[in-house]
C-alpha cells in the first residue's frame, strides 16, 4: 500500500540535486546559458603581462591556454573548472581561486566579494556542497552504485589509512599555497614560474575526466602537462578516485576543497542534531555513511553531532530507525528528522 512512498527522501532529493548540478556544471554551456550574463561578481582578469606570456605559450595547453574563456566567475565552493574549457556554467573551484589569485598577486579589493560569498555559503551550509553539488562526488557515487549493482564486495580504508589520507590532504593544501606563492615571485624567470602555476589544477584528478566528458570535440592534449611530478600526482589521485568503485568516496578523504570547507562544518547553520537518549546505538548510521564516519554513532552525551569529515549527505538521518533521534536543522528550524519506516 505504501509502495509509492519514497523510502529514503533525503537520498532521493540528493540524487536529483547531484544530477542537476552535474549537468549545470559540466554541460551548462550546452544548455545555452550565457556565462557572462549570470555573473554578478566582478571578473578577475589576469594582469596584462601574464596574458602576453600565456599567449606566447605553445598551443593546446589546457590550463594555461590562451583561449581561456571569460567564465562565469563566481567561485562557489564546488569543483567545476577550467578543464571544462568551452562549457561549464560555473568556474567554481575555490582552490583554483586561491591558487590563481596568489599567483597573480590580485589586489585584495577585487577578491573581497568572492571571499565574502564563499564565507557566507560556507558558514550557511558547511560541506553541503560535497554531498549535494560536487560533480566529483557524484562521479564517485555513481561508481559505487555500479559496484553495488554488480554485487561486488565493498571495501573499507582502515582507520589508520583514513588518517594518513587526511594528513595528505593537509599536506596538499599547504603545498598548493606554497607553490602558488612561489609562482608569484617576480624575480624568478617565467619558465620556472609556469611550472608551478596553478599547481592545484595540475595535480587535480579532474584532468582525466572533465576534458573527456565536458568538452566537445575532445581537444585534450597531454603534452603541455609535461610538468612530470604533478602529472604523476594527478594520475595517482585519479586512481584514488577510481578506487571509489570499491571504497566509497575515496577521493573526498584527500580533497583540499573539502578540507577547506570542513573547517566550517562545525557551527555552520546547516546542522545535524541528535537526541542522545533516543539513540539505541544500533550502528546503522555507521554502515550507511559513505565516509564510514563513527561520530554520529559514538556521540551519546551532546546533541551537537557536527564534525569535520561529514559531507552532509544525511543518509544517517534517512536510515535511522528511531523516531526523532536525528534531525537536520537549518537556521534553527528542523528540516528533516529521522523516523521509523514501515
Amino acid at each position: 500500500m505504501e509502495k509509492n512512498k519514497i523510502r529514503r527522501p533525503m537520498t532521493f532529493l540528493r540524487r536529483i540535486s547531484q544530477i542537476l548540478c552535474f549537468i549545470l556544471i559540466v554541460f551548462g554551456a550546452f544548455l545555452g546559458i550565457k556565462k557572462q550574463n549570470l555573473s554578478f561578481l566582478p571578473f578577475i582578469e589576469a594582469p596584462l603581462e601574464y596574458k602576453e606570456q600565456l599567449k606566447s605559450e605553445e598551443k593546446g595547453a589546457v590550463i594555461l591556454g590562451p583561449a581561456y574563456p571569460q567564465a562565469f566567475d563566481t567561485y562557489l565552493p564546488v569543483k567545476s573548472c577550467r578543464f571544462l574549457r568551452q562549457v561549464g556554467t560555473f568556474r567554481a573551484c575555490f582552490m583554483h581561486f586561491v591558487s590563481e589569485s596568489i599567483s597573480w598577486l590580485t589586489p585584495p579589493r577585487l577578491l573581497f566579494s568572492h571571499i565574502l560569498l564563499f564565507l557566507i555559503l560556507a558558514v550557511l551550509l558547511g560541506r553541503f556542497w560535497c554531498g549535494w553539488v560536487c560533480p566529483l562526488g557524484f562521479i564517485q557515487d555513481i561508481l559505487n552504485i555500479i559496484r553495488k549493482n554488480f554485487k561486488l564486495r565493498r571495501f573499507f580504508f582502515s582507520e589508520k589509512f583514513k588518517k594518513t589520507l587526511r594528513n595528505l590532504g593537509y599536506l596538499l593544501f599547504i603545498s598548493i599555497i606554497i607553490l602558488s606563492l612561489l609562482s608569484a615571485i617576480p624575480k624568478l624567470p617565467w619558465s620556472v614560474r609556469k611550472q608551478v602555476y596553478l599547481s592545484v589544477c595540475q595535480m587535480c584528478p579532474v584532468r582525466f575526466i572533465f576534458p573527456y566528458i565536458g568538452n566537445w570535440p575532445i581537444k585534450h592534449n597531454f603534452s603541455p602537462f609535461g610538468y612530470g611530478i604533478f602529472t604523476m600526482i594527478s594520475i595517482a589521485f585519479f586512481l584514488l578516485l577510481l578506487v571509489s568503485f570499491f571504497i566509497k568516496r575515496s577521493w573526498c578523504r584527500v580533497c583540499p576543497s573539502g578540507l577547506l570547507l570542513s573547517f566550517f562544518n562545525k557551527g555552520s547553520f546547516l546542522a545535524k542534531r541528535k537526541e542522545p537518549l533516543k539513540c539505541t546505538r544500533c550502528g546503522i548510521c555507521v554502515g550507511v555513511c559513505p565516509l564510514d564516519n563513527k561520530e554520529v554513532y559514538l556521540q551519546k552525551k551532546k546533541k551537537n553531532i557536527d564534525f569535520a569529515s561529514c559531507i552532509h549527505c544525511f543518509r544517517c538521518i534517512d536510515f535511522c530507525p528511531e523516531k526523532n533521534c536525528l534531525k537536520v536543522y537549518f537556521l534553527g528550524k528542523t528540516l528533516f528528522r529521522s523516523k521509523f519506516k514501515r
Partner: protein
Amino acid sequence: MKEILERRYTLTPFKKEIKGLKDAFRRASLRNLDSMRKRGFRPKNISYYEEVILGEKRYEELKGFSGRIIGYFCTFIPQELIYAARAIPIRLCSGFYDTVLVCEEILAKDICPLVKSSFGFKISASSYFELCDAVILPTPCDPKKKLIEILSDYLPVWVLKIPQDKTSSSKEIWLEEIKSLKERIEDFTKTKLTRQRLEETIKLIHKRQTLFRQLYEIRRANPYLMGGRDFLLVIQTSFYDDIERWIDKTEELCKQLSKEKTHFKTDEKIKILVTGSPIIWPNFKLLNIIEDLGAEIVCDDLCSGTQSLYNLVEPDEPTTDVMLGAIADGYLLSSVCPCFIENNDRIDRVLNLIEEFRVGGVIYHSLRLCQLYEIESHRLRLILKEKKIPMLTIHTDYSQEDTEQIKTRVEAFLEMLKR
C-alpha cells in the same frame, strides 16, 4: 574453522523422564492465561498466540518438520543465518519452574533459574529442546558458559563468544564469530548460505521486526489497547512459531488495533516500565501481580521482551560482506545485556522509555542469582532517584512461594504512585 569444544571426555548424558511435566506446563500456562483474560479489552486474535504459547500444536508441527531445527539462547543469535539454511530456529530460554526442580537433582540450588529451567527440559527429554538438532549458545554470563560444556554431552553445541564491550576491536572479533557460525551452519545443514538466501532472510526478519515496531508504535500511542502481558505473549510466541504465519497473524493484529484506536479512551491507570532480568513464559508471576493490581505495563526493556524483536538488521547494500557486517552489528551493538563492561546504553534506554511512555514507576525484576542484573540495578536505582522516578526492585525466582510478599511490595509501590 576453529573448534572450540575439544570434548576430551564424552560422558553418558544424564536423563530422567518426569511424568506429567507437559500437564504441569499446561497448568502453569493456563494459570497465566486465566489471569490475563480478566482484562477488559483484549484483541480478538490473541487466542491464536495463546494456542501457540501452550505449545502442543506447534510441537507436533515441528516434529513433522523434515529439515533441521536449531535451538538458541539469548538475543545474540542471528536467526537470519539459521533461516537462510532452511532450518528453523527455536529459542530455548525457559521460565518453567518444574524443570528447575528436575535440574536441581544434579545441579546445586544456587544456580541461575533460567539455565536450570532450560537444562531441565533437556534432562527430562521434553518440549522443543528434544527436537533440536543442535544448539547455539552465546557466552554472556557464567551459567550460560558452563551450560555449553554440560550440553555438549547431549547434542552438538556451537559457541558464540560475546565480546566484553562494543569497541571496534570487539566488533571485529564478533564479526569473525558470526562468520564462523555461518560456516558451521553451512557444514551442518549441508546448504550453502548464498548471497541471495541471506538477502531473502534478512528481508524476512526485517519484515518481522518492522511489523513488531508497528505494534510497538500502536502501543506507544495508546498503551491501553493491549495489555503488557498480551504484548509479551505476542513477542514470546515468535520464539517458537512459524515466522511467516506469525507475520500474517501479527499484521492482522496491527490492523485490528489501529481500527480500535478511535473508540478507546485513555484512563487513569498507572504506567509501569518493567526492566531487569528476563521474564519468560510461563514465569509471568510478577507481571500478573502488577496487572492484576490494576497497573499497566506500558513498556519493557527485557531481553525476552521488546529487546528480542526491536533491533533491526539494515544492510546498506545486498553484498555478502556488508550483510554479514550488518547482522553482526544488529545483534551486538544495540544489545543492552548487562554482560558488557559498561552498559550505559541500557540506562539510556530505560530513561528514554520513561520519557516516551510517560512512565509512572519502574519495576526492576531481579532474578535471584542473576548477578549481572542485580549489580546493575544499583546504579540505575541511583540515577532514577536523582531524576525522581520511583523504582521498586523485586528479588525473586521462578517459584510461586513469594507471591504474597511481592504482592504487598507492588501494591504498596502502586499506592505510593497513585498519590
